């Protein structure tokens, strides 16, 4: 996505600043990894998979930092987006900012963990509790795609349809050949299909939670499929319009 690409560099620095709090907390703990693993408690020395507390904390810090950077870019993109509806923006920003707050707090918690077992448990929450890449960011992009179709593309398809219909019913009635009539009929079919497939789609996508994703990793698949079908329908509708405009030229 171009908007994300453009904004990445600018927002990465801000995200790193956000991560600063948690990473500094990690640093306070990990500056003495040996001491932390050997002096705090026996359980703190190794987690479930034999990882040291320090190693887990470092991995957690990296994972949280990466996600905060991505969230910062997404927040910037959503804020500046002209495609996403205002209602969806509100929902998305609430989700994304909530993730930033939650992940930042989780980073502080993990940095303060004194056992590898606890750190490992908290570390897993980075993924299961937020699903930044598996859910939050796809929610941003899929909602933007749905809104682009419903807010921008569909009205233009409908506008072209009505203008062409008026021409064919009036001054260009002599050019209303069977082929043109077939194209106009298919255009109407495509518009109806796109309208039905995208109606409420962004709201559906935005309503999904990490818990739902954890229970069903294919949670977004139906919405993604609907968007793909609608995108293809837009392509077909565009071809119909081109067929008619060429006949009227």
């Amino acid at each position, binding site marked *: 996505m171009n908007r994300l690409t453009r904004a990445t560099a600018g927002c990465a620095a801000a995200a790193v600043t956000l991560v600063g709090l948690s990473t500094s907390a990690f640093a306070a703990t990990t500056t003495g990894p040996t001491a932390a693993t050997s002096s705090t408690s026996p359980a703190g020395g190794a987690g479930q998979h034999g990882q040291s507390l320090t190693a887990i904390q470092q*991995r957690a810090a990296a994972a949280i930092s990466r996600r905060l950077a991505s969230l910062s870019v997404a927040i910037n993109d959503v804020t500046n987006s002209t495609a996403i509806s205002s209602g969806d923006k509100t929902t998305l920003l609430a989700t994304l900012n909530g993730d930033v707050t939650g992940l930042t707090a989780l980073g502080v918690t993990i940095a303060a963990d004194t056992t590898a077992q606890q750190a490992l448990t908290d570390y897993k929450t980075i993924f299961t509790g937020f699903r930044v890449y598996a859910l939050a960011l796809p929610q941003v992009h899929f909602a933007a795609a749905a809104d682009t179709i419903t807010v921008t593309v569909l009205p233009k398809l409908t506008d072209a349809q009505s203008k062409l219909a008026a021409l064919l019913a009036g001054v260009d009635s002599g050019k209303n050949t069977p082929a043109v009539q077939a194209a106009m009929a298919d255009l109407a079919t495509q518009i109806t299909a796109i309208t039905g497939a995208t109606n409420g789609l962004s709201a559906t996508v935005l309503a999904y939670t990490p818990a739902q994703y954890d229970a069903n990793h294919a949670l977004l698949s139906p919405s993604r499929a609907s968007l793909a079908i609608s995108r293809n329908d837009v392509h077909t509708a*565009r071809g119909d319009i081109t067929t008619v405009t060429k006949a009227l030229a």
Partner: protein
Amino acid sequence: MSRRTPGTAAAVVVSVTLLVTLAAGCSSHGTTGIPSTPASAVSSPVMTTAPAAPSVAAVVTTVPSAPANAAAAPTVSPSAVATTPTPAGASSDLAAVNRDLAAIDAGSSATDNELAAGDSARAQNDDAQ
């Protein structure tokens, strides 16, 4: 009386000549208003006025309701009347449709980018390792 006889005869001849001339003149004027009698021998002296008659006939043929030109009128006047006001309105509507197409293309491209970005995010590993 005998001296008057030649004068009277001469006067009669002149009168008859004048009458014939007047009669001819009156009859020719009477036929000029009738285009349907161009073959009349009397109208031949009036041929100078004949061009006026065809010009009137030409104006009449431009009137769509003229029955004499009913066969020719449909082939010319409908298309001429229909196409004259069409170009401005039709072309502006087609231009608007082309602008719609451009917006549809831009929206389609943006949609593709969003879908690709969403897929890219989903492709990343979001599970604890």
